[in-house]
């Protein structure tokens, strides 16, 4: 963990209860958290402010999570993206990775597991940027 500054996480999920609780709990763990209840809001936040890792739900009201992922990848090919879904399916999981997600996990995801995934994705991203 190279956390002299806070890792910035964007949560995109239309289940607002889940969104709020997760945001609070992540903030308590020392992350800077932004939230969006749909894809368009999420993309707007990404366009305006720096984000390290996006946690993106697969089922969003205005756009399929995979389409949203493709939108994100157009501008930010190396941003860390973790996909979340309530319905496990081998096919869906693989499709997310093919579309360039860094990781994929199932709801309900325990907070510790989410934190761990965020840390790993963030670290891998950073090791891509930094000089060796």
């Amino acid at each position, binding site marked *: *963990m190279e956390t002299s500054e806070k890792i910035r996480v964007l949560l995109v999920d239309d289940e607002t209860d889940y969104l709020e609780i997760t945001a609070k709990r992540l903030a308590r763990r020392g992350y800077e958290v932004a939230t969006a209840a749909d894809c368009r809001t999420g993309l707007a936040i990404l366009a305006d402010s720096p984000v390290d890792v996006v946690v993106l739900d697969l089922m969003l009201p205005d756009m399929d999570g995979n389409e949203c992922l493709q939108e994100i990848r157009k501008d930010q090919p190396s941003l860390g993206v973790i996909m979340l879904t*309530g319905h*496990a*399916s*081998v*096919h*869906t*999981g*693989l*499709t*997310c*990775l*093919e579309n360039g997600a860094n*990781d*994929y*996990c*199932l709801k309900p995801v325990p907070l510790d597991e989410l934190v*761990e995934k965020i*840390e*790993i994705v963030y670290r*891998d991203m950073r*090791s*891509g940027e930094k000089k*060796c």
Partner: protein
Amino acid sequence: MSGKLKTGLKKVVTFFSSAGPPADPEVLEESFRSHYRGFRALLTANNSALDLMAGMERALTRGRPFGMAFVRGQCTALTVNVYKMIHSLQEISDGKYQGLSPAFEEISGKIEEILARQPEVPPGEHVLPLSHISKEDADAVGEKLANLGEVHNRAGLEIPAGFAITAAATQYFMHSTGLQDEINRLLKTVDLDDLEQLYTTSARIQHLISAAPLPADLERQIMDSYQSLTSADGKKPLISMRSSATEEDGSGASFAGQYRTQLNISEDSILETYKEIVASKYGSQAIIYRHQRGFRHQDVIMCVGCMVMVDAAVSGVMFSRSPRDPSSSLVEINAAPGLGRRVVEGIVDTDYYQVYREAPTESSHQGPGKVGGHLTPEKQRELAGIAISLEEHFGVPQDIEWSIEESGKIIILQSRPLAQLSQEDTVFIQAADAQGKDLLIRAGLSVSRGTAFGAIFKVHSNVDLLEFPKGAVLVVEHPIPEWASLMNRAAAVVSETGHAATHLAIVAREFGVPAIFGMEHGMELLENGMAVTVDADSCCIYRGKREEVLTRSVPPPNLMVGSPIYHILEEIMTLVVPLNLTDPTSPFFKPSQCETLHDLTRFCHEKAVDQMFTFGKVSGFAAKSAKQLVGESPFQWWVLDLDDGFRQGFDVKQKYVSWDDIVSEPMKAIWDGMTIKPWQGPPPVSVKGFGSILFRSTMNPSLDPAVRASLGNRNFFLISRNFCNLSMRLGYHFTLAEAYLGELLTENYVSFQFKGGAADRSRRFIRVYLLRDILERYGFRVEVKLDALTARIEKQPKEYLIERLKVLGYLLIHTRQIDMVMGDQSMVDRYRRMIIGDLDEIVKPNSIGGE
């Protein structure tokens, strides 16, 4: 997904081949860094994959319930990680292993297919007369009705006149409602630990089904069948309507009392009742029960038996053998006046008879009825005879519901396999044990054996039920089937009334929950919150914890074994776990030979290590070439620094590296283990043992342990500060040890693989077993297949893992020539003692014996 994966991989390949061979050191450095990133991503995915596989294996053996959500979730996460590994390997190998994606697609495709498989419902009639039904019709009408048909049509006994509404009818009805998707959605979100939520959801689903209209043709078919039951004098009979679910009884799960049965139904309420019974599939206790027993909801389809009501003088339940003591030669009969339902719900006090199988004229009776009870000796004998003949007919002990009409005719209402005959062979503890001032009550019948400790919680109604804490002792007045939804929470059950034949007793035995029924005044004498020890073997309850009683408790049974979900996971595991690729030097170590996800992970891991090790050599990049280790060692070692495994300031252009230059913690730990005790040279060898090794050496000279020259380049370390991968081919042994010791506990692991050996097969097996025993002693999870061994520990603190790495280092050196003595058991034992003696000095004693 197949096409997409191919395109994805192709993109990667094109990217790398068009990049061309870099020459500039900076470009090389960047290229190496990108390889290293891929390598790390591959290792992370590898660990996650192995962890998931272990979790799936644990689920099969541990016996705790799991549902399809778990199976699907694990499979998804696993395939995702294997995909990541393949993707990463293609990145760092410039797309060299094209064969991986077809192999992966084939395996993951098969897994998807198993996950998507649905139970087949045989098409057919919507209603069937009982007189047309036999055992083979279980898929069409459920086990209960199929058996009842068999009782009449093949065993020649009396059953009520009636008909069955089949599984095909229920499917037809449910399909016509269009409700299934909504029901599935509601079920998916329900938390089984939240009983209140479960009750609400269950009520809602049942309401949806009951309120839906029946298709007109089905209504007509049911009512036409009913009309056929009209008696000669034109009287329309009242009927009983009994649930008979497919998968009930046959799979070893009793489903006792889980679904609805309605009595005295008149013509005008038949259709409503049918829908209610179909809906009772989603009763809360039935939902919990299916989860505990590993059934998907779609595995169970409700069929309904409609039977003319019996004008019963006496009714009851009998067991062809005692459910508590299968070896006894007694038929047990419970009887009460009137209808049998109150007997199975344990609401009435019953006459209890034991009839000797061999001498049916001898019987004993206990109960509240008049002297001798409600059954004459003749009827007792007749019933016992029926029980024995049904046991013979079905081939297993039976649990039989019966009624006797006023005319004296015996009618059979149900016959099913007797649930849970064999509990553990605990000896019945008699009065001698039941003493002491802490004894609160001693009364009642042991209906499910065992002992337990917990706080008393009395349940009067469904409202109390919602408050029931996990691990409490359930105390009730009557053992009605509704309480079955607490069987996964209760430590023990105490009921004031009831006996072994009640549905709740059957379910308690099935779940291994100790139970005492017929314990009079239990509700009065036991106070809520009181901590007690329940001894259901001797029907005693003690205040506080009685350790000497609790030591007799037996572990709960694995309820998942044999269930539909268990079978699904088991079948998937054949595509996941078996490791066929164990020897990297074999010509069969290639993508097309990968039959399981484990094979794919093994292949990717091996090739990724190769890619990293040869990067410097292939690209001519000295800084990232392996350096030869200088120092005292019987072997030659090469070390490649992946990132920060050499001290700062080390001149990367050197060809040699000395021990002082290395800062990799896991490598140091392995090295410490290797050198902690001096190797005392080869052990004394019996002529036979040495001969057998010489023989194999002659057949394959490259395996000769004396051929040092070819070994050197096979021993290498890939390191960073936190990471070490050691590959070793010493003599006949192929060994791989790997470890990561980082900040995130979940990323930490030590893994070890071992394969081969010079000696003949049996000797190799002895060595692998010796290694397994030792590694298990120090907390490794070990798997052995033929002469290949894999061992892992993960998610442990650094200090713990450092000790284990020392163990591995020690074993690498000290077991390597034990082959030669392996034929001599006393020598093997001597070595085992010597090795454990040495290792116990390395490993802290409190951490020996598991994680």
